[in-house]
Protein backbone atom coordinates (compact mmCIF):
# COMPACT_ATOMS: atom_id res chain seq x y z
CA UNK A 1 0.00 0.00 0.00
CA UNK A 2 1.17 3.45 -0.92
CA UNK A 3 2.05 6.43 1.25
CA UNK A 4 1.06 9.86 -0.13
CA UNK A 5 3.54 12.70 0.31
CA UNK A 6 2.09 16.19 -0.16
CA UNK A 7 4.29 18.60 -2.14
CA UNK A 8 3.66 22.33 -1.77
CA UNK A 9 5.65 25.01 -3.57
CA UNK A 10 8.45 25.45 -1.02
CA UNK A 11 8.38 21.95 0.50
CA UNK A 12 11.95 20.71 0.90
CA UNK A 13 11.70 17.48 2.89
CA UNK A 14 9.33 15.72 0.50
CA UNK A 15 12.21 13.85 -1.12
CA UNK A 16 13.72 13.01 2.27
CA UNK A 17 10.44 11.35 3.24
CA UNK A 18 10.43 9.44 -0.07
CA UNK A 19 14.03 8.29 0.43
CA UNK A 20 13.28 7.15 3.96
CA UNK A 21 10.05 5.37 3.02
CA UNK A 22 11.30 3.74 -0.18
CA UNK A 23 15.06 3.48 0.29
CA UNK A 24 15.15 2.52 3.96
CA UNK A 25 11.80 0.84 4.49
CA UNK A 26 10.85 -0.43 1.03
CA UNK A 27 7.43 1.27 1.06
CA UNK A 28 5.99 2.69 -2.16
CA UNK A 29 5.11 6.40 -2.15
CA UNK A 30 3.26 8.84 -4.38
CA UNK A 31 3.83 12.59 -4.48
CA UNK A 32 0.65 14.65 -4.18
CA UNK A 33 1.04 18.08 -5.78
CA UNK A 34 -0.81 20.74 -3.81
CA UNK A 35 -3.52 20.98 -6.48
CA UNK A 36 -4.18 17.21 -6.45
CA UNK A 37 -7.57 15.98 -5.24
CA UNK A 38 -7.25 12.23 -5.73
CA UNK A 39 -6.14 10.33 -2.64
CA UNK A 40 -7.46 6.95 -3.82
CA UNK A 41 -5.33 3.94 -2.99
CA UNK A 42 -3.34 5.74 -0.31
CA UNK A 43 -2.88 4.19 3.06
CA UNK A 44 -1.49 7.24 4.80
CA UNK A 45 -0.58 10.84 4.00
CA UNK A 46 2.56 12.68 5.07
CA UNK A 47 2.85 16.48 5.14
CA UNK A 48 6.61 17.04 4.93
CA UNK A 49 8.86 19.80 6.21
CA UNK A 50 9.92 22.92 4.36
CA UNK A 51 8.47 26.36 3.75
CA UNK A 52 5.10 25.88 2.09
CA UNK A 53 4.28 28.91 -0.07
CA UNK A 54 7.36 30.58 1.41
CA UNK A 55 5.67 30.54 4.85
CA UNK A 56 4.17 33.89 3.84
CA UNK A 57 1.80 35.45 6.40
CA UNK A 58 2.37 32.64 8.94
CA UNK A 59 3.86 29.15 8.68
CA UNK A 60 1.19 26.96 7.09
CA UNK A 61 -1.36 29.78 6.70
CA UNK A 62 -1.55 29.67 2.91
CA UNK A 63 -1.06 25.90 2.65
CA UNK A 64 -4.21 25.40 4.67
CA UNK A 65 -6.27 26.49 1.65
CA UNK A 66 -4.56 24.14 -0.84
CA UNK A 67 -7.03 21.89 -2.69
CA UNK A 68 -5.15 18.74 -1.61
CA UNK A 69 -5.65 19.65 2.04
CA UNK A 70 -9.43 19.67 1.76
CA UNK A 71 -9.07 16.01 0.73
CA UNK A 72 -6.54 15.33 3.50
CA UNK A 73 -9.02 16.83 5.98
CA UNK A 74 -11.77 14.41 4.89
CA UNK A 75 -9.24 11.54 4.86
CA UNK A 76 -8.25 12.31 8.46
CA UNK A 77 -11.87 12.69 9.54
CA UNK A 78 -12.55 9.20 8.16
CA UNK A 79 -9.73 7.90 10.39
CA UNK A 80 -7.00 7.88 7.74
CA UNK A 81 -3.47 8.17 9.16
CA UNK A 82 -1.92 11.62 8.64
CA UNK A 83 1.59 12.61 9.69
CA UNK A 84 2.77 16.24 9.75
CA UNK A 85 6.50 16.77 10.14
CA UNK A 86 7.86 20.24 11.03
CA UNK A 87 6.17 22.56 8.48
CA UNK A 88 3.61 19.75 8.17
CA UNK A 89 2.85 20.09 11.90
CA UNK A 90 2.43 23.85 11.43
CA UNK A 91 0.01 23.18 8.57
CA UNK A 92 -2.00 20.71 10.69
CA UNK A 93 -2.52 23.35 13.40
CA UNK A 94 -3.55 26.00 10.83
CA UNK A 95 -5.91 23.45 9.30
CA UNK A 96 -7.47 22.79 12.71
CA UNK A 97 -6.67 19.07 12.77
CA UNK A 98 -4.48 19.72 15.81
CA UNK A 99 -4.95 22.51 18.38
CA UNK A 100 -2.53 25.34 19.19
CA UNK A 101 0.07 27.07 17.03
CA UNK A 102 3.83 27.01 16.37
CA UNK A 103 5.56 30.32 16.97
CA UNK A 104 9.05 31.85 16.72
CA UNK A 105 11.67 30.01 18.81
CA UNK A 106 12.16 31.61 22.21
CA UNK A 107 15.78 32.57 21.50
CA UNK A 108 15.06 33.47 17.84
CA UNK A 109 17.77 31.16 16.44
CA UNK A 110 17.06 28.60 13.76
CA UNK A 111 17.80 25.33 15.56
CA UNK A 112 19.41 22.47 13.64
CA UNK A 113 20.60 19.78 16.03
CA UNK A 114 19.79 16.37 17.51
CA UNK A 115 17.09 16.59 20.16
CA UNK A 116 16.33 14.12 22.93
CA UNK A 117 12.65 13.31 23.26
CA UNK A 118 10.44 11.35 25.59
CA UNK A 119 7.73 9.26 23.92
CA UNK A 120 4.32 8.63 25.47
CA UNK A 121 2.69 6.69 22.63
CA UNK A 122 -0.74 6.27 24.30
CA UNK A 123 -3.36 5.83 21.59
CA UNK A 124 -1.27 7.32 18.76
CA UNK A 125 -1.19 4.92 15.79
CA UNK A 126 2.09 6.33 14.53
CA UNK A 127 3.92 5.59 17.79
CA UNK A 128 2.82 1.99 18.38
CA UNK A 129 6.41 0.78 17.93
CA UNK A 130 7.74 2.74 20.91
CA UNK A 131 7.59 1.98 24.64
CA UNK A 132 5.99 4.31 27.17
CA UNK A 133 8.57 6.80 28.54
CA UNK A 134 11.09 5.65 25.94
CA UNK A 135 13.84 8.18 25.29
CA UNK A 136 14.78 8.71 21.63
CA UNK A 137 16.87 11.18 19.63
CA UNK A 138 15.63 12.83 16.43
CA UNK A 139 17.01 15.84 14.56
CA UNK A 140 15.18 19.16 14.71
CA UNK A 141 15.54 21.94 12.12
CA UNK A 142 13.22 24.89 12.62
CA UNK A 143 12.95 28.59 13.40
CA UNK A 144 9.31 28.50 14.44
CA UNK A 145 8.74 25.48 16.62
CA UNK A 146 7.68 26.98 19.93
CA UNK A 147 4.37 25.29 20.63
CA UNK A 148 1.79 27.66 22.03
CA UNK A 149 -1.63 26.91 23.50
CA UNK A 150 -3.68 28.26 26.41
CA UNK A 151 -2.83 26.61 29.77
CA UNK A 152 -6.34 25.10 30.21
CA UNK A 153 -6.19 23.55 26.74
CA UNK A 154 -2.71 22.17 27.42
CA UNK A 155 -3.98 20.53 30.61
CA UNK A 156 -6.86 19.02 28.64
CA UNK A 157 -4.48 17.67 25.98
CA UNK A 158 -2.25 16.17 28.65
CA UNK A 159 -5.22 14.56 30.42
CA UNK A 160 -6.39 13.06 27.12
CA UNK A 161 -2.94 11.61 26.40
CA UNK A 162 -2.52 13.75 23.27
CA UNK A 163 0.95 15.07 24.20
CA UNK A 164 2.89 12.12 22.83
CA UNK A 165 6.35 13.62 22.36
CA UNK A 166 8.16 15.99 24.71
CA UNK A 167 11.59 17.59 24.54
CA UNK A 168 13.98 16.50 27.26
CA UNK A 169 15.76 19.89 27.05
CA UNK A 170 13.08 22.11 25.46
CA UNK A 171 15.30 23.93 22.94
CA UNK A 172 12.64 26.33 21.61
CA UNK A 173 10.56 27.28 24.67
CA UNK A 174 7.43 25.23 23.84
CA UNK A 175 4.73 25.20 26.51
CA UNK A 176 4.69 21.86 28.33
CA UNK A 177 7.87 20.85 26.41
CA UNK A 178 5.54 19.77 23.60
CA UNK A 179 7.38 18.35 20.57
CA UNK A 180 4.53 16.31 19.12
CA UNK A 181 0.77 15.96 19.44
CA UNK A 182 -1.84 13.45 18.38
CA UNK A 183 -5.60 13.91 17.98
CA UNK A 184 -8.36 12.16 19.95
CA UNK A 185 -8.56 9.38 17.33
CA UNK A 186 -4.80 8.78 17.39
CA UNK A 187 -4.62 8.77 13.56
CA UNK A 188 -3.13 12.27 13.20
CA UNK A 189 0.37 13.05 14.49
CA UNK A 190 2.15 16.38 14.22
CA UNK A 191 5.75 16.76 15.37
CA UNK A 192 8.56 19.29 14.93
CA UNK A 193 11.45 16.73 14.88
CA UNK A 194 12.29 14.91 11.64
CA UNK A 195 11.88 11.11 11.86
CA UNK A 196 12.69 10.76 8.13
CA UNK A 197 16.22 12.01 8.83
CA UNK A 198 16.77 9.22 11.36
CA UNK A 199 16.08 6.05 9.38
CA UNK A 200 19.57 5.05 8.26
CA UNK A 201 22.58 4.58 10.59
CA UNK A 202 24.67 6.70 8.20
CA UNK A 203 22.70 9.79 9.23
CA UNK A 204 23.51 9.26 12.90
CA UNK A 205 20.62 7.21 14.24
CA UNK A 206 17.56 5.18 13.37
CA UNK A 207 15.10 6.26 16.06
CA UNK A 208 12.70 7.55 13.41
CA UNK A 209 12.28 4.23 11.62
CA UNK A 210 9.60 2.74 13.84
CA UNK A 211 7.50 5.86 13.39
CA UNK A 212 7.55 5.66 9.60
CA UNK A 213 7.07 1.88 9.72
CA UNK A 214 4.01 2.16 11.95
CA UNK A 215 1.32 2.43 9.35
CA UNK A 216 0.52 -0.47 7.05
CA UNK A 217 3.28 -2.81 8.18
Amino acid at each position, binding site marked *: MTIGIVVFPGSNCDRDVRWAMEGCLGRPTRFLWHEERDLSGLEAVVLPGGFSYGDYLRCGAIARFAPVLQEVLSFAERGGPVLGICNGFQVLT*ELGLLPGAL*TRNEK*LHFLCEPSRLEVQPGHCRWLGGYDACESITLPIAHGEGRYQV*EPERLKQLEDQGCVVLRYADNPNGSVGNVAGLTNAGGNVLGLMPHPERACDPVTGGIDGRRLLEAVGS
Partner: protein
Amino acid sequence: MPLYSARVQVSLRPSVLDPAGEATRAAAARLGVEGVTRLRIGKAIELELEAPDRATAQAQAELLSDRLLSNPVIENWTLELQELG
Protein backbone atom coordinates in the same frame (compact mmCIF):
# COMPACT_ATOMS: atom_id res chain seq x y z
CA MET B 1 -19.40 48.30 -7.66
CA PRO B 2 -18.11 50.46 -4.80
CA LEU B 3 -14.48 50.04 -3.79
CA TYR B 4 -13.42 49.86 -0.16
CA SER B 5 -10.02 49.98 1.46
CA ALA B 6 -9.29 48.04 4.60
CA ARG B 7 -6.37 48.17 6.99
CA VAL B 8 -6.02 45.14 9.24
CA GLN B 9 -3.72 45.37 12.23
CA VAL B 10 -2.61 41.96 13.53
CA SER B 11 -0.92 41.76 16.93
CA LEU B 12 0.27 38.89 19.07
CA ARG B 13 -2.08 38.17 21.94
CA PRO B 14 -0.72 39.59 25.21
CA SER B 15 -0.19 36.08 26.65
CA VAL B 16 2.09 35.07 23.75
CA LEU B 17 5.82 35.63 24.12
CA ASP B 18 7.29 37.94 21.45
CA PRO B 19 11.05 37.21 21.38
CA ALA B 20 11.58 39.40 18.29
CA GLY B 21 9.88 42.31 20.10
CA GLU B 22 12.13 41.74 23.13
CA ALA B 23 15.25 41.71 20.95
CA THR B 24 14.14 44.97 19.31
CA ARG B 25 13.50 46.52 22.71
CA ALA B 26 17.05 45.62 23.73
CA ALA B 27 18.32 47.31 20.54
CA ALA B 28 16.35 50.46 21.43
CA ALA B 29 18.36 50.67 24.65
CA ARG B 30 21.61 50.28 22.67
CA LEU B 31 20.49 53.19 20.49
CA GLY B 32 20.33 55.22 23.68
CA VAL B 33 16.55 55.19 24.19
CA GLU B 34 16.33 53.72 27.68
CA GLY B 35 12.68 54.30 28.47
CA VAL B 36 11.02 51.69 26.23
CA THR B 37 9.05 49.51 28.67
CA ARG B 38 7.14 47.47 26.12
CA LEU B 39 7.62 46.64 22.45
CA ARG B 40 5.50 44.14 20.53
CA ILE B 41 5.81 43.40 16.83
CA GLY B 42 2.68 42.82 14.76
CA LYS B 43 1.81 43.35 11.13
CA ALA B 44 -0.43 45.60 9.10
CA ILE B 45 -2.19 44.40 5.97
CA GLU B 46 -3.68 46.89 3.53
CA LEU B 47 -6.19 45.71 0.98
CA GLU B 48 -8.84 46.99 -1.36
CA LEU B 49 -12.00 45.11 -2.17
CA GLU B 50 -15.11 45.59 -4.24
CA ALA B 51 -18.47 44.90 -2.63
CA PRO B 52 -22.08 45.88 -3.31
CA ASP B 53 -22.40 47.79 -0.02
CA ARG B 54 -20.55 48.70 3.14
CA ALA B 55 -22.06 45.93 5.28
CA THR B 56 -20.91 43.28 2.81
CA ALA B 57 -17.44 44.81 2.58
CA GLN B 58 -17.23 44.87 6.38
CA ALA B 59 -18.36 41.23 6.65
CA GLN B 60 -15.87 40.07 4.00
CA ALA B 61 -12.98 42.00 5.54
CA GLU B 62 -13.84 40.52 8.94
CA LEU B 63 -13.91 37.02 7.47
CA LEU B 64 -10.48 37.59 5.92
CA SER B 65 -9.09 39.02 9.17
CA ASP B 66 -10.38 36.13 11.22
CA ARG B 67 -9.73 33.17 8.93
CA LEU B 68 -6.71 34.09 6.84
CA LEU B 69 -4.82 37.17 7.98
CA SER B 70 -4.63 36.18 11.66
CA ASN B 71 -4.54 33.00 13.70
CA PRO B 72 -6.92 33.48 16.64
CA VAL B 73 -4.90 31.02 18.74
CA ILE B 74 -2.01 33.47 18.98
CA GLU B 75 -3.16 36.76 17.45
CA ASN B 76 -5.75 39.54 17.76
CA TRP B 77 -6.79 41.85 14.94
CA THR B 78 -8.47 45.20 14.41
CA LEU B 79 -9.98 46.47 11.19
CA GLU B 80 -10.47 49.93 9.69
CA LEU B 81 -12.67 50.12 6.61
CA GLN B 82 -13.13 53.12 4.30
CA GLU B 83 -15.16 53.62 1.16
CA LEU B 84 -13.03 54.79 -1.75
CA GLY B 85 -16.00 55.42 -4.01
